[in-house]
């Protein structure tokens, strides 16, 4: 009899213990959820800060390019036109006409260059028209300047990666281009964009002097580290191949379907 009583009391106790265990589990899980949400918020905030920094850097780089372009190209052209017109007063009508026509052509070229520059200056224009368009504009600008030859190749049907991610890709391209122009002594840059359902690749290759990636340290490697970190924040991976005398190749790979919780397709200025 006592045994039965004990068994029944034990069973009742277990019946009370079961919901207690459940409540404890729900509470623990809820605390973990809180921690997870806080971490997500923190990452989101870091990403937004990084994005803002990227946006500012893109604008600074663009302004710097435009300034250089105005100084090296447009100012030169306009000075030449000014000289032409100053000299034209003492010439015979036939040569005068020739000089005027030549000056008109040069001014038309300067206007055209300024139009291109105004497009570069308009940051919204860059991001509204997408990464491909922005890269194409930039490649045309560099090719026109004659500093280096850029070949842009597109594999697959292009699609949007979302404004935030495209901005980061564009900044990576700018940084990489800058490095090539400053240090590589290259004559050619190949840019390849590969679009497939599962993968997007941006490859930037140059035929410059190359370097040994292991030897990059301190400030020399910080730009590269920056690119890697930013790529990682949007769920992409960077691969760098280079060796002395054999140029350099940087590939950034992203699975467009892998959605980072904080890096969505929102425009970069939607920071709230």
């Amino acid at each position, binding site marked *: 009899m006592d045994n039965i009583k004990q068994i029944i009391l034990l069973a009742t106790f277990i019946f*009370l213990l079961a919901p207690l265990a459940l409540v404890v589990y*729900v509470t623990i899980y809820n605390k973990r959820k809180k921690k997870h949400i806080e971490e997500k918020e923190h990452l989101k905030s870091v990403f937004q800060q990084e994005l803002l920094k990227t946006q500012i850097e893109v604008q600074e780089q663009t302004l710097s390019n435009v300034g250089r372009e105005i100084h090296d190209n447009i100012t030169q052209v306009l000075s030449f036109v000014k000289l032409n017109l100053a000299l034209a007063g003492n010439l015979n009508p036939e040569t005068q006409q020739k000089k005027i026509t030549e000056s008109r052509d040069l001014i038309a070229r300067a206007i055209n260059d300024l139009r291109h520059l105004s497009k570069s200056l308009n940051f919204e224009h860059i991001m509204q028209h997408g990464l491909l368009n922005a890269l194409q504009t930039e490649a045309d600008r560099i090719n026109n300047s004659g500093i280096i030859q850029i070949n842009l190749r597109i594999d697959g049907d292009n699609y949007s990666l979302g404004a935030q991610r495209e901005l980061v890709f564009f900044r990576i391209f700018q940084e990489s281009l800058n490095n090539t122009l400053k240090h590589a002594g290259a004559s050619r840059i190949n840019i390849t964009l590969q679009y497939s359902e599962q993968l997007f690749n941006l490859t930037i290759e140059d035929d410059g002097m190359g370097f040994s990636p292991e030897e990059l340290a301190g400030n020399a490697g910080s730009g590269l580290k920056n690119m890697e970190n930013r790529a990682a924040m949007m769920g992409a991976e960077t691969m760098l191949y280079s060796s002395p005398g054999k140029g350099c190749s940087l590939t950034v790979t992203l699975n467009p379907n892998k959605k980072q919780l904080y890096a969505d397709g929102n425009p970069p200025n939607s920071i709230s």
Partner: protein
Amino acid sequence: MTKYLTIYTIAELICFISAVVCLFNVKALQWRLLIPFLLITCLVEMGAIPLKAVYKANPIPSNSSAWMYNILLLLQMGAFSFMFYNLIGKYLAGRLLIVTGISILILIYAYELFTNVAGIFNYNSTTYSAMSVVFIIYSLYYYYTLLRGEEYAELKFLPEFWWVTGTLFFFFGTTAVNLFYTYLLNSYPGNKLYLVYISDVLIVILYGCWSYAFICKRWTTSNK
């Protein structure tokens, strides 16, 4: 007067007073409805006390208090289901659960009412056992939605959580009591004492959690 003050009635009265104080100005109907529900529960519980004495003196079905509890059973089914509908009814599966659950309970209730020898004067114990299982399922589903939801809620101050927790504890415990009730009484009538103790503990847990839930509801409502 003191005969009306049992652990059951004291716990119910405290909970009723908490409900009146905390829920009177709450806009949500499912919470305000708990005030009349608890009032009726208190009245039934107190009204049953003199009837028990009458039944003890002359144990014929028409003297029992079972009819009061049978009516209360209907109110319990309604009030609990309405509250759960507001907690889990925003999901399709939740709505289906509620509709299925209430349909099953009404069918069992009607079946028992017509098949019981003394009709309404026999307590519908099968309905009560089924109701316990149904409300346990609702409570578990509520926890599931709580875990699955993306937003974080401070459980310490979440009135719905405490209301469900009290309900879950109570019905989990009473399921165990219901399972062994007949067996224990048949083996030795004195065992009823243990069941009374367990029931007392369960009722204190239920109304304790509910009272705290009402206080939380008051806090959260007045802080908004």
